[in-house]
């Protein structure tokens, strides 16, 4: 097991290094993106640009620049934003992380619960009109873009019906940390949670339904029934348990991607100052240090999520585990 973890860590580091180089090359070495020109303002003189380049070390050879950026980012942790002089990047990300996690954990709870309910219900009600109905609803959930749902939700909760009893509790867009006011935290997040979860409820309900339907026809389910155990047990312990293998591995990957900034649209629409919104802003302003930092942060979570999925997968499916030598 420890060998597995060490191997996993080594490959994680390698992947992170490769990603950092790649991102660096894309933003610093490809001609056309010149951060010094961005910073110099309108109609800069060549001298100004030169001075800026010198100040930020942009006139040094690329490998040196890479090392400098990484050193400021990871070692001294005082990498500064290009667009907002003096603003340090690392604390910005540290501030954004809890927002993103508040958003995606809440959404994940909702989406896992409802997709299991809907997926299992549809599989059990196969042959009745409920199954196609639930699956169509799921498809609608998948088909609605999250920014559109978010905007519509805002339209009603913030504007049209805000003064009715339905939505008068909804606070203005923004975020309150859990540690400051848990109730306010909840009020701010509950609509973003549902908005973000909709897509995944649809996706996971459909995946689970097909996995359950597939399990239904499997020999081991017939064996389980022949044992005389209760139908609930056949369903929960046998069919659902086996169907969960696919479900959980997909969940890990999707959750990792969301943690990495994939909830960007939801964050932007609802004004949540999370990592996604930070990435969005840094990209809009070509703020290279922030881009570097957010991309690396994202890569970190995706790699972590992948490693966790691998471990979890082995926990869920004994066939993946290395054979026990007798």
């Amino acid at each position, binding site marked *: 097991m420890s060998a597995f973890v060490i191997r996993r860590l080594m490959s994680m580091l390698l992947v992170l290094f490769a990603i950092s180089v790649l991102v660096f090359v894309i933003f610093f070495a490809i001609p056309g993106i010149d951060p010094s020109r961005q910073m110099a303002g309108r109609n800069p003189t060549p001298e100004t640009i030169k001075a800026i380049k010198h100040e930020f070390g942009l006139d040094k050879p690329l490998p040196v620049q890479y090392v400098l950026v990484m050193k400021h980012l990871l070692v001294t942790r005082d990498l500064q934003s290009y667009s907002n002089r003096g603003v340090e990047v690392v604390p910005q990300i540290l501030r954004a992380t809890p927002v993103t996690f508040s958003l995606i954990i809440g959404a994940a709870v909702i989406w896992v619960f409802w997709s299991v309910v809907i997926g299992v219900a549809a599989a059990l009600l196969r042959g009745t009109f409920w199954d196609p109905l639930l699956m169509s609803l799921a498809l609608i959930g998948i088909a609605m873009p999250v920014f559109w749902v978010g905007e519509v939700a805002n339209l009603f909760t913030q504007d049209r019906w805000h003064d009715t009893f339905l939505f008068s509790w909804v606070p203005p867009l923004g975020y309150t940390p859990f540690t400051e006011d848990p109730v306010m935290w909840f009020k701010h997040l509950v609509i973003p949670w549902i908005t973000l979860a909709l897509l995944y409820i649809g996706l996971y309900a459909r995946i689970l339904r097909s996995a359950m339907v597939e399990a239904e026809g499997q020999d081991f389910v017939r*064996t389980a029934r022949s044992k*005389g155990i*209760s139908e609930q047990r056949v369903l929960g312990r046998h069919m659902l348990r086996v169907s969960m293998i696919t479900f959980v591995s997909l969940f890990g990957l999707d959750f990792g991607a969301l943690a990495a900034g994939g909830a960007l649209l939801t964050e932007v629409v609802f004004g949540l100052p999370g990592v996604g919104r930070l990435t969005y802003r840094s990209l809009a302003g070509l703020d290279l240090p922030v881009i570097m930092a957010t991309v690396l942060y994202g890569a970190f979570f995706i790699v972590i999520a992948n490693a966790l999925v691998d471990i979890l997968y082995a926990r*869920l499916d004994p066939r993946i585990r290395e054979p026990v030598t*007798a």
Partner: protein
Amino acid sequence: MSEPLLDVRDLRVTFLTDGGDVTAVDGVSLALGADEVLGIVGESGSGKSVTMMSVMRLVPERNTRFEGEVLYGGRDLMQLSRRTMREVRGSEIAMIFQDPMTSLNAVYTVGWQIAEQLREHEGLSAAAARDRAIELLRSVGIPDAEHRVDDYPHQFSGGMRQRVMIAMALSCSPRVLIADEPTTALDVTIQAQILDLIRTLRRETGSSVVLITHDMGVVAELADRVLVMYGGRIVEQGPTRAIFHDPLHPYTWGLLGSIARLDRPRPHRLTAIGGSPAPAWATPSGCVFADRCPHRFERCSEPPPLVAKRGAEDHLDACWLPIEKRGDLR
């Protein structure tokens, strides 16, 4: 035979499909005596598995019509509530399936899977069920059972998995064991071992066995009585000896003729039954075998009854051919 243990009367199973009704089992009656091994032979699609799965009520009930009675212990299993049926399943009547590779759940240890059944029916504690599982695994010949109990199905070979299935089926000492082609997926040497095992355990536990197979050799080896099925109906039934030495139905002749025998001069070719089985959605109204039968005549357009001929009460067949002429025709 005294009071039968399991008495199936005029069982009819019809699948309602988009293309019309398909009768998979068409009026099958059979009786299983105490301490008896009943072989059911027939080719794929003859309805032998569906018959026994219906007895266990394991055929999906959606879009399926069941008619007839399955009497066991004074009750009609077809009429039992699902809950009561569950108590019969696994504890009174247990089943082994064809493919041991897929019949066990890959994500649980074999011990857990055996214990699950024990805990359901016998109310054992987890620890007691585990101990019992180890005993059972040992009794089906799994070496090092106290360690193997914690292994997963994929860590066992096919033959060993079938042993696990047998251990599981016998865990609650059922009175009836249904073995649905238990050796089909195994290679020949393992087949013999598994058959031996079933024979030995049966003797020890006194369970009656229904052995479903398409392998006449397996039947000859184990069965006391044989039922030959074709197209969802029984075409011949009788004591194993009689079926092998004095088969009456042309279909049984065909089955026996297609076995390569080592104790006789080698024939030029093995006889094969011409044609292919009538599809279940187009079963003929007369004799089901008529289309493929080399001896058919006008009368075969009516369904022949399953009756005893020639005085032997326990040897029945469903054929119109006059009994005196059969010896010459074969």
